[in-house]
């Protein structure tokens, strides 16, 4: 610790702190542009110049390290003169077009110009004009406004992991630009809009649609991946205009993924379902709520009466709120059915009944940053959990060793210590090898089922890395959870964590992947799980918030089964052609922005939010709709007046974290061997197709991440099949259906594997995410 004095007030700060950090501790604001607490120090804007005793010149507070006895003056004549000088320089070539600038009202330059600028300009020469750049569908540029602070450049290089922006040319001609002919394609690109202290980088979907002071702000929680990023949802006339991050160091820090930032466009989609609809005589009719609810309740009651209550199944979206899931399962159970599930993309349910508690991350999100050894198993990490990937990227820079076990070798933009890339069927065996190798290194006995495996060099390298640290963690990704031997992988990860004295857990796929268990939205004794409900067709289904043809592990099967069902009651914010085909009644329910509710994120944190806008049209919050349905069906215990009442019943109060979190499983027989004949499918869920809301966000759909699915194979596979990258192929899954896809080289894929994305209309016909494919030249 060193003692310093800022404007006459002394304080103790850590050795190695900068003056601006010390001033921040005191609550003293030092004007700045290029400095950002999460980025490296550039010291180029010079706005933070302060006077330091004994220094001949003013010093940049962002880059000056504190020394014992240092005396800093942030408002002295010398300091203020320097700050005003810099402000004058910043403004001479700045367009001063605030009235037509989207940043107006939330512009750091505008704000600081009030304090440090003059009322008129002494600069009477010609002003600089800088050509705009095409950064893609999300970020709009007005480069003439750029003050060259380089925050955006540093963000892409340091946080997003790849330097997609740079500063070309010199001096006054300097321009921030992407690589020639390229756009900024990181899944975190929207953050550069927040970072830009001026109006050079603004939101393409939002710009020119509202002024910042016209917007109402509501705190909310991201409905997408399991992180539960905190949001500020901004509305105008009850229409969501923009979404910004709400800083929460324990969760999303100050960042948002592009999906979280821009999916709001889907809220205003033309496919929003705004009036209840029923199908009568094959024709759809818009009806009043009471008619639709009567229709739905009668349909369910009729099926229960004629076919038994087990003829009803409930498919719930993992993006539904805790309250919605809880009421939906309560409704179905009230009718006598145990066929309830929210784990729509899961294919292995053998852990059901053996679980010690609710599967979760196994640690706090912030703890991920403290792990010094990490093994990520089966995860398209950078796309499935961009902000967790970001955390690991920073950890790796601090010296943490990250290893990967997966069926694809996508560049995570993280320095990896070791990796094993193998076909999906091989993942359990390799993880078993890692367990065996770690047990050998640690000198502990390995499970007998594991003892027989031969440790490969890749597994050994992973084991050595993991065993060399003191705080190891194993993170099981979406691909692991969707894997046909998911329970085995979970059990092995548990053994590995025990051997390492570390932690293990799941990276929650969806906003309520933990909440679904907490809400008991899983089948009870004798009930059917999500896969079984489709394999063994029911007479009636309640579908909440999901589009089963895209959101289930086997979309084709889901579509076929639902189409055959006698009555499908759909509660959804959107309507689609598929829904119109299979549903009997469509009940328009609110998306997250129009209802109150709770998401329990992957670390078990229960985060509640209020509606940010009024429900659109005749849309109603799903918890209210379910409550009325419960009343109509005469189910007991449906006397809720608010979503908070529901929440209190589920969580037993208002705890910050859900209870009963435990990744342990008992008595799962390890299933290591699985030799597969044919080409195994590796199915990723592209991030902008992962849920109904993102699928309807036009700007996201124009990004590179939303490219149409292709048949990715490695060079050996392409050669074997006589294909070249770019050839059209017909891909089949054993049945009669085939889909036309373009062959594409992906050198990171293992042999005998074809990677075809799921959750996309182009590939629904291929059926199960885990399957054997045939590929032939079209």
């Amino acid at each position: 610790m060193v003692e310093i004095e800022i404007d006459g007030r002394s304080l103790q700060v850590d050795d190695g702190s900068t003056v601006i950090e010390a001033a921040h501790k005191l609550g003293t604001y030092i004007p700045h542009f290029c400095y950002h607490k999460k980025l490296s120090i550039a010291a180029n804007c010079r706005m933070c110049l302060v006077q330091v005793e004994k220094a001949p010149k003013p010093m940049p507070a962002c880059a000056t390290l504190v020394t014992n006895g240092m005396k800093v003056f942030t408002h002295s004549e010398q300091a203020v003169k320097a700050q005003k000088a810099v402000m004058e320089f910043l403004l001479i070539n700045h367009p001063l077009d605030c009235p037509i600038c989207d940043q107006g009202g939330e512009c750091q330059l505008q704000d600081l110009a009030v304090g440090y600028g003059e009322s008129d300009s002494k600069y009477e020469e010609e002003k600089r004009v800088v050509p705009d750049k095409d950064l893609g569908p999300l970020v709009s540029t007005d480069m003439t406004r750029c003050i060259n602070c380089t925050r955006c450049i540093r963000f892409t290089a340091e946080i997003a992991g790849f330097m997609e922006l740079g500063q070309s040319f010199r001096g006054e001609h300097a321009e921030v630009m992407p690589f020639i002919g390229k756009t900024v394609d990181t899944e975190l690109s929207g953050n550069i809009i927040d970072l830009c202290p001026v109006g050079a980088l603004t939101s393409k979907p939002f710009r020119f649609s509202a002024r910042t002071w016209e917007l109402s702000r509501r705190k909310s929680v991201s409905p997408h991946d399991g992180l539960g990023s905190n949001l500020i949802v901004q509305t105008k006339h009850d229409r969501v205009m923009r979404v910004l991050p709400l800083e929460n160091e324990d969760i999303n820090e100050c960042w948002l993924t592009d999906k979280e930032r821009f999916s709001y466009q889907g809220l205003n989609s033309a496919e929003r379902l705004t009036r209840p609809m029923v199908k009568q005589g094959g024709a759809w009719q818009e009806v009043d709520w009471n008619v639709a609810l009567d229709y739905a309740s009668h349909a369910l009651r009729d099926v229960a009466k004629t076919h038994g209550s087990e003829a009803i199944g409930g498919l719930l979206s993992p993006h539904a709120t805790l309250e919605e899931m809880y009421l939906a399962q309560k409704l179905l159970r009230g009718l006598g059915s145990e066929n309830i599930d929210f784990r729509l993309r899961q294919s292995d349910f053998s852990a059901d009944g053996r679980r010690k508690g609710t599967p979760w991350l196994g640690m706090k999100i912030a703890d991920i940053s403290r792990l010094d050894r990490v093994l990520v198993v089966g995860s398209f990490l950078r796309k499935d959990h961009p902000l967790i990937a970001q955390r690991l990227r920073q950890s790796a820079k601090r010296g943490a060793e990250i290893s990967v076990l997966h069926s694809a070798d996508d560049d995570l933009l993280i320095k990896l210590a070791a990796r094993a890339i193998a076909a999906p069927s091989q993942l359990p065996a390799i993880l078993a090898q890692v367990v065996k190798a770690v047990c050998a290194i640690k000198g502990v006995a390995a499970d007998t089922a594991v003892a027989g495996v031969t440790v490969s060099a890749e597994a050994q390298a992973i084991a050595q890395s993991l065993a060399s640290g003191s705080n190891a963690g194993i993170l099981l990704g979406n691909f692991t959870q969707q894997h046909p031997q998911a329970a085995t992988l979970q059990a092995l990860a548990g053994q590995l964590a025990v051997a390492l004295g570390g932690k293990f857990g799941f990276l929650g796929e969806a906003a309520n992947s933990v909440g679904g268990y907490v809400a008991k939205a899983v089948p009870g004794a004798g009930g059917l799980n999500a896969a079984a409900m489709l394999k063994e067709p029911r007479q009636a289904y309640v579908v909440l918030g999901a589009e089963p043809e895209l959101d289930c592990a086997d979309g084709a099967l889901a579509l076929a089964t639902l189409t055959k069902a006698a009555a499908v009651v759909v509660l959804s914010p959107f309507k689609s052609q598929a829904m119109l085909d299979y549903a009997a009644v469509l009940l328009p329910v609110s998306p997250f922005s129009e209802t109150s509710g709770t998401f329990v994120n992957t670390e078990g944190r229960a985060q509640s939010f209020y509606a940010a806008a009024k429900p659109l049209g005749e849309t109603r919050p799903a918890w209210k709709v379910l409550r009325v349905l419960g009343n109509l069906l005469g189910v007991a215990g449906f006397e809720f007046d608010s979503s908070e009442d529901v929440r209190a019943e589920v969580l037993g109060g208002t705890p910050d974290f859900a209870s009963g979190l435990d990744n342990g499983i008992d008595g799962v027989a390890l299933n290591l061997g699985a030799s597969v004949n044919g080409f195994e499918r590796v199915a990723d869920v592209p991030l902008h197709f992962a849920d109904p809301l993102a699928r309807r966000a036009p700007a996201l759909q124009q990004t590179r991440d939303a490219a149409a699915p292709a048949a990715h194979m490695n060079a050996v596979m392409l050669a074997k099949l006589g294909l070249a990258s770019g050839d059209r192929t017909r891909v089949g899954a054993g049945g009669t259906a085939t889909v036309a896809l373009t062959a594409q080289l992906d050198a990171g894929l293992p042999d005998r594997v074809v990677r075809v994305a799921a959750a996309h209309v182009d590939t629904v016909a291929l059926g199960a995410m885990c399957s054997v494919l045939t590929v032939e030249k079209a």
Partner: protein
Amino acid sequence: MALIDTINPLLTTGWSKGDAGWSLKDYEARGGYAQLKRILSSKMSQDEVIAEVKKSALRGRGGAGFPAGLKWSFMPKAAPEKYVVCNTDEGEPGTFKDRDLLRYDPHSTIEGMIIAAYAVGAKRGYNYIHGEIFDIYQRFEEALDQARAAGYLGERILGSDFSFDLFAHHGWGAYICGEETGLLESIEGKKGQPRYKPPFPANFGLYGKPTTINNTETFAAIPFIMGMGGEAYLNLGKPNNGGTKLFSVSGHVNRPGNYEVPMGTPFAKLLEMAGGMRGGRKLKAVIPGGSSAPVLPAEVMMDCTMDYDSIAKAGSMLGSGAVIVMDETVCMVKALERLSYFYFEESCGQCTPCREGSGWLYRVVHRIEHGEGRPEDLDLLNRVTDNMMGKTICALADAAAFPVRSFIKHFKSEFEYHIEHKKCLVSPEVQRAGSGFFKAGAA
């Protein structure tokens, strides 16, 4: 433009044969590499070498004048990986000494760098040569091949346990890459932009490793210092201003070129060596240390001796030793316009005051020169320079400001005349006559 004249030739001993005397055998015939051999065979300690350089009071010849021995002593002893870098990115307008050093005697620089590497414990070195003198870069590569073949570079040099290799690296012509940390960034393959200091290169230099970076002329002087001893070298010049110095004399003199003279030589003597004023015209002003040094009027300059302290006392800088001589035919507004344009073009664009201020300065001076000046412009220029100086990461903002301030300070009446009469005090005919491109009266 070879060496024209010298007092006490040291650095320039090998220049007399012009392009015929640069190769290894010529250098060895002049006693080259003898000092390296002596140091290695006698197992002289690193501290002894540094002490000798300190004793010589050799000050950095690139412009800043920082004592070389002191700089070397900052290198951490224990660091396993260290670098020695030579700055031949001679971009300062008016300076052309390093070009000729490498053209006529590249091995003295190489030997100097090897000795420096030995003294600071570096195993690798780079010489960054600016892109406009590509033929010099090629010659330096040849010289490196010769030195490697002769065992002066590489593993276990001359059978000792000291290993060092040296590489040439050529830039692409950015002035800012002559700033030492901008140069290091450029070697690393990044955009040449100065780094914030501290940390200084001795702690965090090339690739983040401790690095000693010196000017070409500084390294070239090392073998001579080791040969004659630090004391003797110091005595060649003045106290605190050891040795001889190369001066690149340009402008309105009869014999522009490089001159090696002992530190402390009167300017009048240097001017005389350069053949005096061209056409016998009257000296008007001198920029004594390269374009970024403040200009000095004739009467001040004629009283100066050529060393760091005397020039500093007169209100300018010895800088890189580029002496730009201007006679009475020069329009000082036009001269300043050209200088300001240079700094406007060469600012790296990193720091706000320099990026924005250098363009502002140039535009205002340009306006004055083109008859669109306003009475308030001179105050404006002084205010803008005041706002630039000392507020940036590197000294380029100061370099852009010094000429503006000094030209206005010493030749204010000429600027005022320009503003008031919308034309030059020095008539265009006179300017043309003095330019050298036009014969007097030929127009």
